[in-house]
């Protein structure tokens, strides 16, 4: 952690460590959930998708576990300063991870639907997912190590995810214009890409939380962002 010295009361340190372990484990689970969901989409594997959908329950349980531990720490330890920020931040991070897991679940549900329609090549999706996966891994490392520089790098990286999402959006639009039979598959893929993009946002939220946890100050509002795809114009004559 940012503050390496130990508390006079050792059990307090153990509880804080337990909080870190829980968040870390939760991060590992949602990372796997994202990976599995994307693989289910790419391999058109409905069974795998089913497993991912069921797996989301575990993420929800872990979030509740973090919540219970945070309530306990607040009530019994009356944390101050860096400890208070650490505990409150963990609660927020758990909420972001839970939402992250929900997005993986949505992707998995669409993987089931998408396996019934003609295959559409979407090479950007895999890249985007890998990028977000790396972001969530790095941002949780930043949380455990109290490394704000690492958190800020993750925070900046989200712009790339946005850009990938935009190019994927344009690509899928082109397929749909080429052949209306692609519309079902493309729409599903578009929602999937949107889910991945939102996951990137949760990773940046966590980066902001880590920054607050360590420094006690907020990151500025003006996060670098990619283009807003809702303003991308489809060229019907093209």
């Amino acid at each position, binding site marked *: 952690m940012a*503050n390496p010295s*130990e508390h*006079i009361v050792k059990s*307090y340190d153990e509880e804080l460590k337990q909080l870190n372990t829980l968040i870390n484990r939760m991060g590992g689970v949602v990372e796997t959930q994202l990976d599995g969901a994307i693989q289910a989409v790419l391999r058109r594997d409905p069974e795998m998708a089913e497993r991912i959908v069921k797996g989301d329950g575990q993420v929800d349980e872990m979030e509740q576990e973090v919540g219970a531990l945070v309530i306990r720490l607040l009530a019994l330890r009356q944390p*101050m*300063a860096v*400890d*208070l*920020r650490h505990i409150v931040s963990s609660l927020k991070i758990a909420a972001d991870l839970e939402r992250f897991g929900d997005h993986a679940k949505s992707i998995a549900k669409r993987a089931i639907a998408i396996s019934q329609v003609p295959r559409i090549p979407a090479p950007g999706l895999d890249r985007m997912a890998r990028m977000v996966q790396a972001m969530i891994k790095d941002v949780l490392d930043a949380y455990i190590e109290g490394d704000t520089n690492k958190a800020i790098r993750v925070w900046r990286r989200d712009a790339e995810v946005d850009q990938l999402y935009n190019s994927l959006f344009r690509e899928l639009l082109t397929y749909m214009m080429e052949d209306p039979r692609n519309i079902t598959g493309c729409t599903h893929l578009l929602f999937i890409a949107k889910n991945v993009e939102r996951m990137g946002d949760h990773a940046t939220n966590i980066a902001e939380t880590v920054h607050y946890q360590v420094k*006690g100050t907020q990151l500025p509002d003006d996060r670098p962002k990619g283009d807003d795809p809702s303003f991308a114009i489809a060229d019907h004559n093209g």
Partner: protein
Amino acid sequence: MTRHLELKTAVMNKKSEDQTEAPLRNVPRTKISATHVDVFYGEKQALMDVNLDINEREVTALIGPSGCGKSTFLRCLNRMNDVIDICRVKGDILLDDRNIYDRAIDVVQLRALVGMVFQKPNPFPKSIYENVAYGPRIHGLASTGEELDEIVMSSLGRAGLLNEVKDRLNEPGTGLSGGQQQRLCIARAIAVSPEVILMDEPCSALDPIATARIEELIDELRANFTIVIVTHSMQQAARVSQRTAFFHLGNLVEVGDTEQIFTNPSDKRTQDYITGRFG
């Protein structure tokens, strides 16, 4: 009609004046200003070059581990250290721009202006009434019995004790519960119309309910008084004060808004102390 208009204009003017004054009002006035304060007990230096401003009508909490000098500093503010022979105080402490260590200052008057409440409730072995009446009487604040009654009643009222004792004002103050005794001591302190009240761990001998009542009282009193409180309970400092000063080994390490000190202190020693990491 004209009059009505005039009145309205006057009100509107007043409003615009208020608005321009608003930012000024948010800046608290300095009531006590301590600069380069050193305190020695014989050879041993207990405070090192302390510079601290106490804002008017605010509660300032002094926190720090035992022996850090917080009580010593508090006792400098009404020259309680004078009674310790080997104690020497250097530096300047200004109360409203007057140096309280000036030879011309009457210490008795100073202590009426800067009252004190101690760790253990210490009512005089006299009646409840006499406990409160004593100060105003020796300072000649009341010329008639009715005036004295008025002061006693209003002081007991402001200390939140009146309802509990109004039917037994002639019973001994020592017969009250600990929390009531402490509120009696606060009533005694405010009876002489002080401007500053110093509190040296005023709740450490009280149960949580009595503590909560004192804390509520402190919050009410700050509308009229400048309060400096030494406390070992950081939760208490966080609850009652607007500003917090952290002392360690005779140094003033950090002073700031209470919220900032307890959520994001800038000095590592403050951080370690308030999070329970001091070895």
